[in-house]
């Protein structure tokens, strides 16, 4: 354990990465993960505070001090057990959580030095544990047998929120069935987040773990179409969790937006990730291969799309954003990675017009130069047009990543479900229960597009309430 007085505080143990020049051309994981030695060195930086603040920063309330302590004692299984107590998807969270705003943002070390690399340690514990094939031990069917097989719960959607509900409840002996609309479970973890940030094998392993706990996954079942909430209650489910995700991509409403070569980030990423278009024609789903690609938007999805386009052999990839790098909603780490790999940032520019050739294919776009004005409702400085200053960018592909709106399928099929004024499902912040008794909802369909971990946090609150009622 670090001796607070005598020892000079070491900096964070750097994460090994694939070199930028190399990784920009492959879909292998960018961050390679700590070795055992690196993990132990980093774990020893933890001060083991009496009142740890990091845990308060964690949406699923992981006993961070506890698992790092176990790691320092070289007890990998103990560390894993501690994480799994509150987190069903540690290998995923260790990779995609915005720790800088959560646990690491609260770490006391971070006040004067760099915070403990909690996310990297979480990933190490999950990966090392899985690598030892030790998952059999905790998911041994004997210890996780259904104790209340007469009580069952249905989850609609199989993204992070539903997987959390499933893990929590199955671990407590309830029967959980998950209904997924696509052909592969995992939701955004499969169709949205690219392979180089979250390998699909990692997601598959987490899902296999849930299957061993007795969770059943039904693919090709569309909530609201193939099966309705009412159908589920008629089939004897005691509670239903709705975690169907954010849904429809927003477009810009700019002329020329439906030209060939203009895509939503959702379409582009779904083709490449779910459809494995990076392996076309060995996989049948094609994706457009633009030479000069423009990405509109600057959130994590925009970064994912831009970095994917590079890996799909684009000659240039430019992010067009109305504000400055400072205001970009993406994680700093994602922006840094994108820039390292060669993505250009074109800030203070807003899209005005897409130009097509005589065959309806995108060939350029006009952007409006902006400057920052007074802060708006979001607290960020509002972009203001600089009259008369426009620029034309040559591009044969544009990817629009400016967010989503609620998917109407389940909502239209369930008119009695109360919605917020933004059209998302209204759910109790504590219990996640909706206007229909014993129907719970969480994740992006409640909050609008947010993070994996906030969806998991909602899943955990819903699961705790469901467990309280059914067990």
């Amino acid at each position, binding site marked *: 354990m670090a001796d607070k007085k005598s020892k000079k505080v070491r900096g964070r143990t750097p994460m090994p990465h694939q070199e930028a020049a190399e990784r920009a051309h492959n879909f292998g994981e960018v961050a390679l993960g700590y070795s055992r030695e690196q993990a132990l060195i980093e774990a020893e930086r933890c001060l083991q505070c009496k009142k740890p603040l990091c845990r308060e920063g964690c949406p699923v309330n992981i006993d961070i001090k506890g698992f790092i302590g176990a790691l320092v004692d070289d007890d990998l299984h103990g560390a894993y057990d501690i994480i799994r107590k509150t987190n069903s998807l540690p290998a995923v969270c260790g990779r995609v959580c915005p720790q800088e705003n959560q646990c690491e943002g609260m770490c006391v070390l971070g006040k004067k030095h760099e915070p403990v690399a909690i996310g990297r340690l979480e990933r190490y514990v999950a990966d090392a544990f899985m690598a030892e094939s030790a998952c059999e031990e905790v998911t041994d069917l004997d210890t996780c047998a259904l104790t209340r097989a007469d009580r069952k719960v249905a989850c609609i959607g199989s993204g992070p929120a539903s997987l959390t509900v499933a893990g929590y409840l199955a671990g407590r002996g309830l029967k959980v069935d998950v209904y997924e*609309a*696509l*052909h592969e479970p995992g939701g955004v973890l499969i*169709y949205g987040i690219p392979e180089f940030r979250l390998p699909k094998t990692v997601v598959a392993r987490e899902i296999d773990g849930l299957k061993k706990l007795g969770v059943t996954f039904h*693919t*090709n*079942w*569309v909530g609201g*179409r*193939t*099966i309705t909430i009412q159908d589920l209650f008629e089939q004897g489910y005691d509670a239903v969790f709705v975690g169907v*995700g954010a*849904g*429809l*991509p927003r*477009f810009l*409403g700019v002329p020329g*937006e*439906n*030209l*060939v070569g203009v*895509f*939503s980030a*959702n*379409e582009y990423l*779904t*083709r490449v990730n*779910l*459809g*494995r278009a990076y392996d*076309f*024609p*060995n*996989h*049948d*789903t*094609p994706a*457009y291969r633009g030479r000069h690609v423009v990405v509109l938007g600057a959130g994590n999805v925009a970064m994912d799309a831009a970095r994917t386009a590079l890996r799909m052999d684009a000659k240039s990839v430019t992010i067009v954003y109305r504000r400055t790098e400072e205001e970009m909603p993406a994680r700093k780490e994602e922006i840094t990675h994108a820039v390292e790999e060669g993505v250009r940032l074109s800030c203070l520019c807003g899209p005005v017009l897409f130009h097509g050739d005589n*065959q*309806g294919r995108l060939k350029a776009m006009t952007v409006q130069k902006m400057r920052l004005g007074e802060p708006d409702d979001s607290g960020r400085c509002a972009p203001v047009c600089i009259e008369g200053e426009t620029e034309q960018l040559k591009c044969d592909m544009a990817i629009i990543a400016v967010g989503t709106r609620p*998917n*109407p*399928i389940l909502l239209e099929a369930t008119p009695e479900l109360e919605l917020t004024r933004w059209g998302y499902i209204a759910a109790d912040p504590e219990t996640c229960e909706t206007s229909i008794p014993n129907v719970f909802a969480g994740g992006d369909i409640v909050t609008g597009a947010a993070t994996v971990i906030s969806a998991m946090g909602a899943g955990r609150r819903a699961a705790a309430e469901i467990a309280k009622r059914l067990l």
Partner: protein
Amino acid sequence: MGYKIVKKAELIPGQTTMMVIEAPQVAKKAKPGNFVMLRVSETGERIPLTIADCDREAGTVTIVYLVVGKTTAEMNTLKEGGEFLDVCGPLGRPTHIEKSGTVVCVGGGTGIAAMHHIAKGHVEAGNRVIAIVGARSKNLLLFCSELSSFCPELRIATDDGSEGHKGFVTEVLQEILETEDEIAEVVAIGPVPMMEAVCRVTLPFKVKTTVSLNSIMVDGIGMCGACRCTVGGKTLFACVDGPEFDGHKVDFAELRTRLWQFREQEEESMEKFSQECQCHGR
């Protein structure tokens, strides 16, 4: 665990095939106008196909497809008793069917199969249905006996005059519009040029005209916007807002362009598949 093909019939040899697929959960909910997303194999692409018929008791849905690319070519290699890896549905808004009077249903190509399902719905709702089907030649007509089993007024048009009217479906439609008093609605399903031509014919008569758009789709559940189209100046998604729209408001030129987005990759995929088939002696 796939979706079994309980019946396969080549309707037009080498071109058009009908399959009856076991998917009870889809059949239970399917309505005229709905579609399914299908996938043949682990490396396959999801493609949308309109449901041509469904049998709730048998738990089956019927699809009819034209071999146009790799996926449909691969589907043709599946045999009766074989399986689809994925069948997802029913998707899309069903056809708006209510008792409205006389409805003219126009079908062309594989669209005749989908139109047949909608025509059946209108007959069941108590509407008088006049069906018009068209093809280049008599041997390329589909679903005529099925249609005539519930729709006494079946009109046929062939380009070469080998059956029925010699000429296009639009000419038959024009005549009906001129002679019939009250037409509540015209429904057109088929190739884009046919649907566009139908809309041109009905426009001066101010008859409500519904078309079913066969846009490119990826997920089919509203997530991607690949199927977006311009209807009445607004961008709508064929998968969740459609696939049926007011034909007089659809931007067909844009639809045609967007349908060709992936032509090069589609050709590459088909080429590869043909070579593999030759290698495997299929």
